[in-house]
């Protein structure tokens, strides 16, 4: 009984401690560092650490006093307790996170009630549609990304003289997959394009042949898969196996990370994907990242690095460590330096709901070991190549 008593005592004592230190300013980071999304959580944190480091080197401001408190939240069920702990025990003045939409949603319920600001790059539309004041979303919403995935692809194809009259949507039945697929579907309806295949499939599917068989029968003009890595490899490989040359336009996540290339090699060449941001806007930052981690900087690292810098700058502007004042400063700030210059729109700013006013989805294309921004034209680094697979 004694050990239990000590554990109980210490846990409760932790809760009672006002943990706010005098000179350091703590910012909480809530990410899945274990569990199935661990890789994405880790690279997000890597991006944030790099962003903080660079800010500390480049400016003499408040960044030197900022400490990042990282905590592992593998699933939404773990989010409330972790968020509360960061706010009340560690005394964080703001939070950044989380990679997956459902964790962000769960955490933001706590931050809203505790009145602590949180910046996220998760896609779900709901995040900023609940009328909450303390949550900010720096990327476009899932529905907008889905719409862009369709519209941009159609525009590029038609510019090359390819007519798009029917498409296939393949999505995993996660929060991210269903939200983005809905965006594609709605945009297709608006454009009068037939959705010949519209299949959700369970996460962790081990054989996608049934999906590809239905694609082959329906003969769509473009395939739009929305998925994490496992399924993206299976889909592209199975299509290649069967000699299907239908162009594939990926839905971010699994299609724009280094591991996609590791799994497919040369077959990634010229694969398109929608993306919330790409590293080729900020080659210098990317070089730093590549030196530290051996791969190009994935978009989540860039986005979360930018989110952190926005928050730090807002703290400076507010000249306060009161979370409510910081929230107002985040809302008012238009931040265009550092990592933020690597985002489409090259700045971060929010409307009154906390949604981005500057961000928009872009199109990227695999070229060798790199992905380059190819669309829309004002953002493009290179021309898109509409090549059907041979």
């Amino acid at each position, binding site marked *: 009984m004694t050990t239990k008593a000590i554990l109980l005592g210490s846990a409760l004592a*932790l809760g009672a401690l006002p943990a706010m230190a005098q000179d350091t300013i703590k910012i909480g980071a809530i990410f899945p560092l274990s569990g199935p999304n661990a890789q994405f959580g880790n690279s997000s944190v890597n991006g944030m650490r790099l962003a903080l480091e660079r800010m500390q080197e480049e400016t003499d401001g408040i960044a030197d006093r900022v400490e990042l408190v990282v905590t592992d939240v593998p699933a939404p069920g773990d989010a409330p*307790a972790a968020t509360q702990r960061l706010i009340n*025990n560690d005394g964080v003045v703001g939070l950044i996170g989380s990679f997956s939409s459902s964790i962000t*949603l769960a955490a933001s*319920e706590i931050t809203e*009630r505790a009145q602590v600001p949180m910046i996220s790059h998760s896609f779900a539309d709901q995040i900023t549609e609940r009328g909450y004041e303390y949550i900010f979303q720096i990327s476009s919403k899932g529905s907008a990304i889905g719409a862009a995935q369709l519209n941009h692809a159609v525009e590029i194809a038609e510019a090359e003289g390819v007519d798009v009259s029917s498409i296939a949507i393949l999505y995993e039945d996660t929060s991210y997959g269903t939200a983005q697929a809905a965006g594609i579907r709605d945009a297709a309806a608006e454009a009068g394009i037939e959705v010949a295949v519209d299949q959700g499939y369970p996460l962790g599917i081990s054989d996608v042949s049934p999906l590809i068989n239905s694609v082959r029968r329906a003969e769509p003009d473009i395939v739009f898969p929305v998925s994490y890595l496992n399924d993206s490899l299976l889909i592209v490989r199975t299509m290649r196996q069967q000699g299907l040359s239908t162009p594939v336009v990926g839905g971010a996540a699994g299609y724009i990370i280094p591991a996609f290339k590791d799994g497919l090699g040369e077959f990634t060449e010229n694969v398109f994907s929608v993306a919330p941001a790409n590293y080729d806007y900020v080659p210098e930052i990317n070089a730093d990242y590549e030196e530290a981690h051996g791969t190009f900087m994935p978009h989540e690292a860039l986005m979360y690095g930018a989110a952190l810098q926005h928050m730090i700058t807002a703290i400076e502007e507010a000249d306060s460590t009161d979370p409510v004042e910081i929230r107002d400063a985040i809302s008012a700030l238009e931040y265009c330096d550092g990592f933020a210059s690597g985002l489409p729109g090259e700045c971060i700013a929010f409307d009154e709901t906390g949604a981005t006013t500057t961000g928009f989805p872009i199109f990227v294309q695999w070229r060798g070991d790199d992905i380059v921004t190819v669309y829309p034209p004002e953002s493009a680094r290179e021309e898109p190549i509409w090549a059907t697979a041979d």
Partner: protein
Amino acid sequence: MKRSLLILAVIAIAAILLGLALDPRSYGVRVLCLILMAAALGQAWNIVGGLANQISLGHAAFFGIGAYTSTVLQVQFELTPWIGMPIGAVLAAVAAGAIALPTMRLKGPYFALATLAFGEICRIGAQAMSGVTGGPQGLSVPFYGDSLAMMQFRQPGAYVPLFAALFFLVSAVFAVMSHGRLGYMLRAVRENEEAAEVTGIDTVRIKLTGAIISAACTALVGGLFAQFTFFIDPDTVFSTTEISIRAALIAIVGGVGLLWGPIVGALFVVLVEEFLNSTLSDALPGISPFLFGVALVVIVIARPEGLVSFRHLVTDRFGKKGKEA
């Protein structure tokens, strides 16, 4: 039994007083709520798992049904959870009846696997019925601010009395059952089903009653969970690992079939988890669930009967081959 109820009441009141003493916004208060919730969840599982020795690994089904029923009613019709939660309990009871019929005769691992599959069916169902449940994207509880009528509050401290009351309610149901006729008959079924049948116990009805009560209690816990976290999605509330296995784990770590088992188990599980998370989580990802797994292995090996022991396991090599099912 009166003594047990009295002690339970004292624990519940002590928890409420502790909640009042702590900062109502604090993490400590949230941990207190989590402990009470875990104890209630483990106790609800204990009704079938402990009294009837049916190792259910599908209680997430009832937890999820409870959470979704009250939340959907609240989102769609602005119905207060005070009414929504009992409706959820009724639906869960119906679901328990439906699944109990085909699985009741199963024993040991067979029963465990069948219930596990049932939990998964409910999860996939909730994911597919996106019109009602919001699908994989989950459902947010509408924000009303502090509202007793809508059973929601800004600060976790306000939930302590609710969780304490639920804990007391479920534990009292267990205490009354285990001392009463029903509990006696469930135990008889547990010890020897055929013998129980011969003595005139309607084993089907007994097990069905136990399953229904257990499911209803679990659904109430699920409903309050939704009010407490404000966001639910199918992967969370129908989770095999986070809910079903956890409910069983709490009862088992403490001591299966005992009134005090889930209470000891909840204290142990929640405190160890939160302690590991708060001290190690940023040090090395994976270390806290790893150590938790180590703790579980050590407990099972050292005290297979749980922290509060009671059962004499007769290890007869001929009579029991470890796979009597």
